[in-house]
């Protein structure tokens, strides 16, 4: 039995009888971060980082949740667990598992380059590394974040000059705050969809200073939005909620916008290539930095990426079936959908 196993409930550590990011209800769950496909309902006990906890509490309500600072070791049945920054969203962690001299790292979702708001990724040396592969193909290579923000600012400015509303879609948790933190708030007022504003409130309470935002409400008039930036979850576009903006340009901020086909199919006016997941170079860099000889690729182009690691890097690599979604454009993660109704009342 390996130290970590993939079961039908999640990533299981038998020696400690705990699961990492399980997708079926279990007794004890170690959670890498607050996205709905990694932190689900129904576990008896949760453990996550101190900075990930507020959002998870906000989402899951009354759960038994313990927290740990980054880098601190928790022993369970003689197995040592510690959480290390994954750079994906605020509080997101890679979970290091050590037992009898063997070290595994389950990295959840991660990106290597700093985004200015999440705790930056730290490589953790290990024997076996569980990696995501959402963008595990060599066609996915991100431009520096600063260039993307320049593009977004320029788009907003041009729309503002034309009297248009700029509606930018992003996940309520993570991408939305990264955008708020990175755009130029001097251009104009920023409105947010209720789902995003609820998350913002939690994040602000944690001590993160986001620029001022205005929650979209029924009291506002369509002219209030002229020239403004609106940040909304992907689920909101194409819904009745969008009708309040009389003349709007819709932008999507997502790694999938790297492909012209995806961009065009979404019928957005602009696609901005901005992802909270590692691109091809980052995945390879992260794996190299761990020094791992064994790599398990999960969600994404897992089988292709594992073959690359096997054949070109000589690693013992394979792909495992999980229920993680990576970055999704098709269906929205649960945390985006939760708030969609709140603003329409």
């Amino acid at each position: 039995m390996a130290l970590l196993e993939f079961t039908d409930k999640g990533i299981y550590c038998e020696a400690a009888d705990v699961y990492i990011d399980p997708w079926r209800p279990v007794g004890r769950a170690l959670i890498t971060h607050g996205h709905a496909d990694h932190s689900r309902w129904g576990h008896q006990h949760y453990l996550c980082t101190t900075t990930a906890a507020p959002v998870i509490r906000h989402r899951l309500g009354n759960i038994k949740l313990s927290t740990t600072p980054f880098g601190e070791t928790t022993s369970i049945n003689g197995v040592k667990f510690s959480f290390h920054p994954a750079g994906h969203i605020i509080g997101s962690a890679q979970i290091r598992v050590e037992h009898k001299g063997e070290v595994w790292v389950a990295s959840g979702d991660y990106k290597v380059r700093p985004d200015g708001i999440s705790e930056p990724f730290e490589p953790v040396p290990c024997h076996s590394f569980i990696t995501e592969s959402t963008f595990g193909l060599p066609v996915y290579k991100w431009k520096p974040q600063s260039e993307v923000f320049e593009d977004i600012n320029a788009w907003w400015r041009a729309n503002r000059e034309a009297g248009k509303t700029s509606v930018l879609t992003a996940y309520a948790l993570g991408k939305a705050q990264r955008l708020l933190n990175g755009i130029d708030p001097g251009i104009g007022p920023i409105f947010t969809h209720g789902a995003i504003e609820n998350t913002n409130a939690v994040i602000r309470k944690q001590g993160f200073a986001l620029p001022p935002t205005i929650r979209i409400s029924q009291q506002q008039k369509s002219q209030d939005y002229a020239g403004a930036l609106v940040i909304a979850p992907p689920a909101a576009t194409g819904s009745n909620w969008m009708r309040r903006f009389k003349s709007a340009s819709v932008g999507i901020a997502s790694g999938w916008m790297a492909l012209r086909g995806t961009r065009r199919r979404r019928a957005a006016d602009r696609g901005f290539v901005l992802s909270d997941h590692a691109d091809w170079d980052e995945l390879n860099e992260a794996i190299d930095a761990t020094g791992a000889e064994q790599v398990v690729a999960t969600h994404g182009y897992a089988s292709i990426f594992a073959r690359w690691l096997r054949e070109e890097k000589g690693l013992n690599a394979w792909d495992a079936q999980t229920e993680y979604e990576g970055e999704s454009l098709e269906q929205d993660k649960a945390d985006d959908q939760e708030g969609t109704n709140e603003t329409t009342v």
Partner: protein
Amino acid sequence: MRAFAALYTRLDQTTKTNAKVAYLAEYFAQTSDEDRLWTVAILSHRRPRRTVNTTLLREWAAELSGIPLWLFEESYHVVGDLSEAIALALPQPTQSSEAGLSHWVEYIKSLGAEEEAVKKARVQSAWLQMEHTERLVFNKLITGGFRIGVSQKLMVRALAQYTGIAENNLAHRLMGQWTPDSTTFEALVLTEDPLEDVSKPYPFYLAYALEEAPESLGPPKAWLAERKWDGIRGQLIVRKGEVFVWSRGEELVTDKFPEYAPLAGLLPDGTVLDGEILPFKDGVPLTFNELQTRIGRKNVTQSILAKAPVILMAYDLLEWQGEDIRARPFAERRQLLERLLSDTHTQGIVQPSPLVPFTEWQALHSEREHARQHHSEGLMLKRKAAPYLSGRKKGDWWKWKAAPLTIDAVMIYAQRGHGRRANLYTDFTFAVWDGNTLVPFTKAYSGLTDKEFGEITAWVRRNTKERFGPVRSVEPRHVFEIAFEGIRKSARHKSGVALRFPRMLRWRKDKPVREANTLEDLHQLLAAYEGNG
């Protein structure tokens, strides 16, 4: 090529026609004559010939990107567009280039004569001088797959905005056989009276599909009906003792159809006919498939001529005794056409497309139902008073196609789409029952809404049985009504049949898999309609 690449990006970011025309006109105003000419050429389907095959491009791209070929192929499949996949996979450029579109087109053309090693060095060097969109455009030019979502018509409109010359005049000047090497922007576009070109065709008038019943068109006596033939729309010109044949794509195809050559001596000079290039033997039209096979061949051999000879099924007379008569009413042109063809012995090479007589619309409903028995696709309805317009215009010409044949089939394989649909499962294989087994008989990839494609994609992801490369076999659980235009025998397919234009008409969520059609049903359709559609 930065300016052209920027234009590409701007055109790609909008679906609004007026915006596209404005961007293009702005580009015309800012670029050089050489680049203007090449832009006009490219947007009028005069792309340079492909000088490097795509297999080599893939290898060179993978090599320069430091990835194995199989990984490049996997990436290409996901991206769905070879030019884009290459542009994305390549490493950052090491230089930049100020050279314009025409320079790079000439660069691509010059590769044709070179050895493979030289081609490789030049292509890789070009890649390293370009940023993403420049590479994308360069790759599209080199593979001959350049499309930009701007029709020739929009290009002409933009050119009209830039030059101040009327669209009609420009459209006429841009017709015919020219390449950027044989002319200049000045001579082609700006010169008022270009060299007389006896081969110059008139722009085609195209019909819209009639969605409602013909009763919506008003009193029947104002209309004429003909059959809609299933060949290639063509324009046949006899001037100065020469014959020219143009296809609807404004391609000169005279050489592909030597059958028409004798017409030079048979029809009077100054005659231009609009009609259908139709494979026709022993008094009946052959299937489009026969014609398609023939077009694919480089040389038109005697055996092809014997197997699938063509005639011109004439619809209209555009030029008569050297006079452009397009402005005259259709009924009058039609009379002139009939008179011309009865006065002239064309050895059966040109035949007037027979009118379908009717006094009440009701009679046409039944004609349409029986269209396949006449080897036709349906009916054409033309207003007697209509002039011959140019382009696709609503109002005077309608095509009223026969209802498609349909069969209920079970989806058994799914594959991701390409391009715009790269993230969706859109290409499906369908099967019918043969006893207790499902026999695949067709693929289809259109007809569903984006929402339905989204729904079936989510289902495919959760119900995959096996993967064979990009193809997934799925649980046989969904029935689709497949519509198609024709059916014929095929030795290449397990089911023994091949369909024409298969597409998904409806997702039959109400229908249990067991109630899908059978192979026998399919063979009955074959017996009833083979060759008739």
